[in-house]
């Protein structure tokens, strides 16, 4: 036999439990609303549409192992690093397109960041192109095509983005692991990829004289088993080659 006191106590506790449940539910709704309000993903500032500018791309061609200058019009940010990344992204987009002359998968997303920093005077690259050794009937090599250098450097003079320093600069290009892993393996194709990146950077940023490569922020021995990624590349190979012509 349940006493009346126990019955009343049970009812009071049941009512209290229901009331507390209702309060908790209400608090949960309020907390959820606050959370949603805090995670508002709406842009805080209106996007600025950068005007389209001209950039010179040195596009590699596997068929004859050459690099040809192409002037592309694309919106470019003002920040030099972001600008360099956008230009290289466009270059790699061309390589990822169907029927590309230098097919490489990955596209613009393959360039993580591009850092521009003052070049050290005592860290000149050992990679400096001497004169074309033998050209007897051979196809022109990438350096030989550098005779178009005046055309390459012309658009860069009109670009407003200027590095923060007045001396020579080094560009550090951070590529993605997916790009390196998916890059075709071969001496010619890897060399063309690196030289086209160096040449494109130099064509649009004349003060960039040295280029180093990282893959996801780390040094990597080779791009895809052949071309050395541990050394500093000289971006002005085109200039040197042309200056050594008779």
């Amino acid at each position, binding site marked *: 036999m349940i006493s009346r006191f126990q019955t009343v106590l049970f009812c009071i506790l049941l009512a209290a439990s229901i009331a507390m449940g209702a309060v908790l539910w209400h608090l949960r709704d309020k907390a959820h609303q606050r959370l949603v309000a805090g995670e508002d993903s709406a842009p805080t500032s209106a996007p600025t549409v950068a005007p389209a500018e001209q950039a010179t791309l040195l596009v590699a061609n596997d068929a004859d192992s050459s690099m040809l200058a192409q002037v592309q019009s694309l919106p470019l940010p003002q920040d030099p690093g972001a600008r360099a990344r956008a230009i290289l992204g466009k270059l790699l987009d061309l390589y990822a397109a169907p029927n590309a002359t230098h097919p490489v998968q990955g596209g613009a997303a393959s360039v993580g960041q591009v850092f521009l920093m003052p070049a050290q005077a005592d860290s000149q690259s050992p990679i400096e192109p001497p004169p074309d050794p033998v050209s007897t009937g051979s196809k022109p090599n990438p350096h030989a095509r550098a005779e178009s250098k005046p055309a390459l450097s012309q658009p860069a003079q009109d670009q407003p983005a200027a590095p923060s320093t007045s001396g020579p600069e080094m560009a550090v290009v951070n590529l993605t692991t997916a790009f390196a892993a998916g890059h075709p393996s071969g001496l010619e194709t890897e060399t063309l990829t690196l030289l086209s990146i160096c040449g494109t950077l130099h064509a649009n940023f004349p003060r960039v004289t040295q280029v180093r490569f990282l893959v996801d922020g780390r040094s990597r021995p080779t791009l895809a*088993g052949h071309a050395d990624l541990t050394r500093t590349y000289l971006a002005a190979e085109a200039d040197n080659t042309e200056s050594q012509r008779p």
Partner: protein
Amino acid sequence: MVASLEISRVPAPFIPASRLWLIALVLSISAGAGHLAAAQAPPAPPPGRFMVVLDAAHGGDDTGGKLSDGQPEKTFTLALSVRLRSLLGARGMQVITTRESDATVDLNRRVEIANHANAQACLSLHASESGTGIHLFVSSLPPVPSPEGVRFLAWKTAQSAWVTRSLALAGVLNSVLLHDGMSVTLGRTALPAVDSMSCPAVAIEVAPESAAAGAPGQPPAAQLNDPAYQARVAAALAAALLEWRTDAGRTEGNQP
């Protein structure tokens, strides 16, 4: 004779016996140093000796690139190395290969083999499906003159002292390959193995034959897996090295 007589009349200087051991010690150290220097100097190749180093790239775990028929690059380079070694041996050349089987050979070990051979030509053999014809690559290191009396070079840039000779070797290869009707591309690259070699070194990348070869009236373009194409490439390289041996005999051999 007169002079010797006059000298003989000069009284010998007096040297205290306590200093004789010091003089003897200095003389012995000088002789030892001279012997050490002679041991460190690279051995001069015997006259008439012509050594070629063939480096079949990749191998073992390092498969290299993948060719169109699914064949790994390491297999092609090994086959080309074996074929070329036979041709060179038949022409009286001494050949050293960095690998004779599908084994992993460390990059530095390959360079050690090449540098110890004191060879007149070092060829790094590669293959790729990209591009066409034969790609000849010389190290992109700037050529530097070999300083007199310096026997030690930086490991990663040792090729600098040989770049000029390597360019000459590439020129001979280019000339013979073109004469054989092949499409040749010349270039400079940064290849770690070649950059460390202290010998005239060229990296050779074999690609499928140019599509122009398959034009009407021409034989069809050969692929990498075509044994006839491989044999033609090997024969042309052997002929080029034969010509290089003649040139090397006229010049300074493997000296930078």
